[in-house]
């Protein structure tokens, strides 16, 4: 599965590559995907086969790792509606596939989920889950629990009515649809089942909106999911409310920017917690919920740990939704803290935005997030630390009245960025989630936008926007190794044992996602689209350009 386990730890116990020998790592194989654009997500390795999903047009490759040169067993080239490219807010990316029961399951950008026979490459089923005409696109990686394939849709910038759906694993039929906003009947809130820690009453996702605003209020699902089998709860985050001009949607706007805990079988909501009520900063909460067992204040707690776009790291009791620790992991000034009694942020009124407030200056972090949900963190049970790619940037936020025109963006804000304190735009950090404390930090010139891999060899891997793939010591953060790959890294490293018994590490190169939008000068393939550099990042195109490569490293 995308994150290696149900707990979304991105930890592998493999230890042949360790802090002592990682500096001998060298590339052993590369493959051009033939596609440009942001290579987010990660390969899967199952039964000596590596599966790679490309950005649009979502080609699925199956490489035979048991043969010299890893030739393809097959490739699957679906017919994907090209309109999806323009309906996706932020580059035509894909976050990867899930392997289960001999099938590779993934989403096509144009609103379809497909199940492909992992041996033959033939389509087992294909289900339309989303509607492009409504502004819905589907880059998210599916998550499978039991006989349910759980999927969601992007479109927080198009005024979608956000949802998750549970598909039947064998047939792909839609078993349930759970909206993130609206009346209890649509949100799958059932009396006696739904027990949020902080909220009381019914129809919370309806009454926290102006009339009908919830129908076009966003609430997309495009991050990573996790599952606790003993509680039978699946966890995922919900994205931003639409539009960005908060004055058009007075109220908390539940359950945007929230973590939801649902029963996978029927989708019913068990608890929910909203990180950023009435969001005026585009702080999607779709970053992964990493499940861990930590000792907090002398007590053993079963928690989920979440690094929000809003700059706070939350440690939450995953059975109840009670917030145990909430501390900033980057520079934060929109809120002074989180009140653990109410669960609500303590706001700085001078950083509240809206069309009537004009241009509000210097809000930290930016809407890219203190950490991007696109770049999932890792947790090592060996060190007890969380490893996080972070952004050190702040923004101005000028909201304007937005008109909802179906099939077009529904935004209403201009939000230029600048580097945060210190001038470095990113950092890679280790975090102690029991106390809410940064243990070490590696400063990076550019925002850090890759996922993370932690290993039993006490090595942590991540990549940079200018194309360095790096290994550092899990305990000290000491840099151990780096290699310059063909394009900036926005994907997630994985490790596996090959048919020869050796340990390998794989990563995609291919700058994109928001960084294609923000640094359009990394493009070279379209003579009719020539852009100036981003004003806050004048030189990234000096070091990288678009690409699409799979890299495998070994000793």
């Amino acid at each position: 599965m995308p994150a290696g386990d149900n707990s979304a730890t991105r930890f592998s116990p493999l230890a042949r590559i360790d802090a002592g020998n990682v500096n001998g790592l060298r590339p052993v194989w590369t493959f051009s995907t033939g596609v440009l654009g942001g290579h987010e997500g990660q390969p899967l390795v199952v039964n000596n086969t590596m599966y790679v999903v490309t950005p649009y047009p979502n080609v699925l490759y199956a490489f035979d790792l048991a043969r010299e040169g890893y030739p393809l067993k097959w490739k699957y080239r679906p017919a994907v509606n090209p309109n999806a490219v323009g309906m996706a807010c932020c580059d035509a990316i894909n976050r990867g596939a899930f392997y289960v029961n001999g099938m590779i399951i993934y989403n096509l950008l144009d609103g379809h989920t497909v199940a492909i026979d992992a041996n033959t490459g033939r389509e087992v089923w294909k289900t339309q889950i989303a509607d492009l005409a409504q502004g819905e696109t589907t880059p998210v990686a599916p998550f499978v629990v039991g006989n349910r394939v759980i999927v969601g849709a992007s479109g927080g910038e198009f005024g979608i009515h956000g949802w998750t759906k549970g598909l039947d694993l064998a047939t792909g039929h839609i078993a349930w649809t759970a909206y993130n906003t609206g009346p209890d009947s649509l949100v799958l809130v059932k009396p006696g089942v739904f027990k949020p820690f902080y909220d009381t009453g019914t129809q919370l996702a309806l009454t926290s909106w102006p009339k009908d605003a919830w129908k076009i209020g966003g609430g997309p699902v495009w991050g990573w999911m996790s599952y606790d089998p003993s509680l039978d709860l699946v966890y995922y985050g919900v994205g931003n409310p639409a539009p960005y001009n908060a004055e058009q949607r007075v109220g908390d706007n539940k359950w945007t920017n929230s973590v939801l805990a649902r029963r996978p079988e029927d989708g019913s909501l068990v608890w929910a917690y909203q990180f950023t009520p009435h969001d005026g900063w585009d702080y999607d909460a779709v970053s992964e919920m990493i499940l861990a067992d930590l000792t907090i204040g002398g007590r053993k707690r079963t928690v989920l740990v979440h690094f929000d776009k809003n700059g706070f790291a939350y440690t939450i009791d995953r059975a109840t939704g009670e917030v145990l620790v909430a501390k900033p992991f980057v520079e934060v000034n929109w809120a002074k803290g989180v009140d653990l009694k109410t669960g609500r942020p303590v706001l700085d009124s001078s950083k509240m935005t809206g069309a009537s407030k004009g241009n509000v200056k210097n809000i930290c972090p930016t809407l890219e997030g203190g950490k991007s949900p696109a770049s999932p963190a890792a947790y090592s049970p060996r060190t007890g630390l969380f490893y996080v790619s972070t952004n050190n940037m702040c923004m101005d936020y000028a909201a304007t009245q937005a008109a909802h025109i179906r099939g077009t963006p529904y935004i209403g804000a201009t939000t230029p960025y600048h580097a945060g304190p210190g001038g470095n735009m990113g950092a890679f950090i280790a975090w102690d989630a029991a106390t809410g404390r940064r243990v070490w930090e590696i400063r990076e010139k550019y925002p850090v936008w890759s996922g993370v891999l932690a290993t039993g060899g006490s090595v942590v891997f991540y990549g940079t926007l200018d194309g360095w793939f790096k290994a550092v010591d899990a305990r000290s953060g000491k840099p151990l190794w780096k290699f310059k790959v063909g394009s900036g890294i926005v994907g997630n490293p994985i490790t596996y044992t090959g048919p020869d018994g050796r340990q390998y590490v794989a990563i995609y190169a291919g700058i994109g996602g928001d960084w294609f939008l923000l640094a359009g000068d990394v493009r070279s393939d379209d003579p009719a689209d020539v852009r100036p550099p981003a004003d806050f990042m004048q030189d990234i195109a000096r070091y990288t350009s678009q690409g699409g490569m799979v890299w495998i490293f070994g000793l």
Partner: protein
Amino acid sequence: MDIRAVGATAGSVVLAALLVVGCRQHEGARTPAVTGSTELIRAGAAPPAVRHDEHVAAGGVQPPGAIITNPYQGDARSAKQGEALFSSMNCDGCHGGGATGWVGPSLADGRWRYGAADGEIFQSIWYGRPHGMPAYGGIANTEAVWKLVTYVQSLQPPEDVPTEAWK
């Protein structure tokens, strides 16, 4: 009138007039609607098929087709109104503020995927394009689309588009 049969040379004037007639149906609309609201403009008559002179013509012979001209070409006030439409119709959500490119391409670099001629830009907006450019002709009238064309044509490309250099 069979607009498809209008020849290339004589056609432009006639068709410009036709489109102005199309606009007159909406007289009293003054400024195109959609400014800051969801009020939509009723669609006018269908615009003619335009010829793409930059396409390679088989046998060296251009097909019959129209060349239509922007009735507001170079008009600063129309460009200003087009700029307001560019925001209120959510064009900036994809092409970026100032149309310098976002998920959609830059419209401020003096380069055009689907042709730089007035009618080609008009058709891109009216009928949409592959890869997600929505068709606006169902909700915007010809006047509004021409003002959008006027706005994007008014954007001055930077002095040196092809070269990006670092010190």
